């Protein structure tokens, strides 16, 4: 496609002149491969609209299973592909969930355990055995495709079934919910009670859905290719060697470049997921709402990775007592939620620090709001608060994109030269 040779992060080079074959080969990229569109999305979305209503859930389930097998196998081999059994197991166990059922507790614990083993085993055992050899380290550890997202959907279903906030649906409907491949890998995190009516509804507005869906997919691909990937030329410098020799002003530029890149990358991904779902006639939750233009950190989090923020509010913040507890507990709850958010993003101290940073910002904003009352309507104050929020959010990204040692070095160089 492009006339220069480049290398993708997964290590497979794409050479000039063999764009199509290369994109098929680099299939661990998923949404930016021809395989995703030609083998999975277009056939599944077309078939979904053509088959009788009773078969629609099975179209999603079969294509979702094939999608998981194909991309998991290419990313994590046979063991990765075998993780499809997790979905099948969960779908069987889910039939036992009911209001006030102990099986729901089992389902919740099962989701947490799955995530804990695959994502955090080496991290927590390493912390527990600090300074000593980790004899119980899982040498061949791998992350099943989309585990952070599908376990959150499992958790949500078990919790809401226990609270009687959602109906059970049929086995096919639940399988379609968890195996809906446009959102399987990286969200948006869906809710069963929102998804079910759309699944049961006959998709009618074929023209509108496909025109809007394809437009959304194209928007996502532009964000990814023309913005996020272009900024990689700067963000690739965020490593120990380059930080040591760079001018301090350049460090600021690289830091902000990462802030723009991650927004373009993830919102682009979400656009493609939402647009893909639209081809089925199914609308899934939005994930972004102009987050970098927000006036304060609270509004930022209401418009950044919205489906995750809502999940954390419903399943962590409110069960902790939310805002109905004493003032110190409210601040503690906010910080705990953001620490969970940080750890969810990755098993590393740097993610914990990133979460703590945002927890402190949110708590600080709440204190500030308590003193100052309603926000000012002065245009200068509005502009200043938007700018400050943007800078503070970007100040946290170094801990998100670099390990602790490199991020600390970044700030040491930035502050002390």
């Amino acid at each position, binding site marked *: 496609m*492009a006339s220069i040779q480049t290398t993708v992060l997964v290590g497979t080079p794409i050479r000039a002149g063999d764009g199509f074959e290369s994109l098929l080969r680099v299939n661990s990229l998923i949404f930016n491969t021809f395989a995703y569109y030609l083998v999975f999305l277009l056939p599944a979305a077309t078939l979904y609209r053509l088959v009788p209503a009773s078969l629609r859930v099975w179209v999603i389930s079969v294509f979702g299973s094939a999608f998981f097998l194909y991309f998991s196998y290419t990313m994590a081999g046979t063991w990765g592909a075998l993780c499809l059994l997790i979905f099948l197991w969960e779908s069987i166990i889910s039939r036992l969930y009911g209001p006030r059922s102990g099986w729901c507790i089992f389902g919740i614990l099962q989701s947490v355990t799955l995530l804990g083993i695959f994502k955090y085993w080496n991290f927590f055992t390493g912390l527990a055995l600090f300074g000593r050899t980790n004899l119980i380290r899982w040498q061949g550890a791998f992350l099943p495709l989309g585990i952070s997202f599908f376990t959150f959907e499992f958790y949500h279903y078990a919790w809401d079934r226990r609270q009687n906030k959602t109906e059970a649906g049929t086995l096919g409907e639940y399988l379609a919910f968890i195996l809906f491949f446009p959102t399987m890998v990286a969200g948006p995190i869906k809710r069963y009670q929102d998804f079910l009516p759309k699944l049961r509804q006959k998709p009618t507005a074929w023209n509108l859905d496909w025109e809007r869906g394809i*437009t959304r997919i194209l928007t996502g691909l532009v964000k990814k290719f*023309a913005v996020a990937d272009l900024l990689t030329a700067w963000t690739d410098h965020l490593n120990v060697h380059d930080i040591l020799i760079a001018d301090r002003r350049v460090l600021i530029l690289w830091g902000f470049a990462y802030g723009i890149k991650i927004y373009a990358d993830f919102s682009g991904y979400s656009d493609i997921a939402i*647009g893909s779902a639209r081809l089925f006639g199914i609308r899934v939750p939005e994930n972004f709402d102009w987050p970098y233009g927000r006036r304060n950190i609270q509004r930022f989090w209401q418009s950044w990775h919205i489906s995750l923020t809502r999940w954390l509010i419903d399943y962590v913040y409110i069960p902790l007592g939310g805002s109905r507890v004493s003032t110190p507990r409210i601040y503690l709850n906010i910080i705990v939620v953001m620490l969970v958010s940080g750890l969810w993003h990755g098993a590393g101290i740097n993610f914990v620090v990133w979460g703590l940073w945002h927890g402190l910002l949110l708590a600080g904003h709440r204190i500030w709001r308590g003193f100052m009352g309603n926000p000012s309507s002065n245009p200068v104050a509005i502009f200043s608060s938007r700018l400050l929020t943007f800078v503070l959010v970007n100040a946290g990204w170094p801990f998100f994109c670099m390990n602790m040692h490199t991020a600390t070095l970044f700030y040491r160089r930035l502050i002390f030269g």
Partner: protein
Amino acid sequence: MLSRFRNTIEYLAGERDVRPPFLNGYIDLLLRCLVWGFAMLLIYTFSGQSSKFIYIDF
């Protein structure tokens, strides 16, 4: 003014279904065709440097 701009961008990006009132039939069609054409041009131009989506590893 700002919300009108925002609604137009969201409509042209496929996020919003409701057409902004000032976009009549022909201009709407022309703009949407231009958006598709420009988007495909950008994708074609920049796709060679493709890298993994950041959140796939989460």
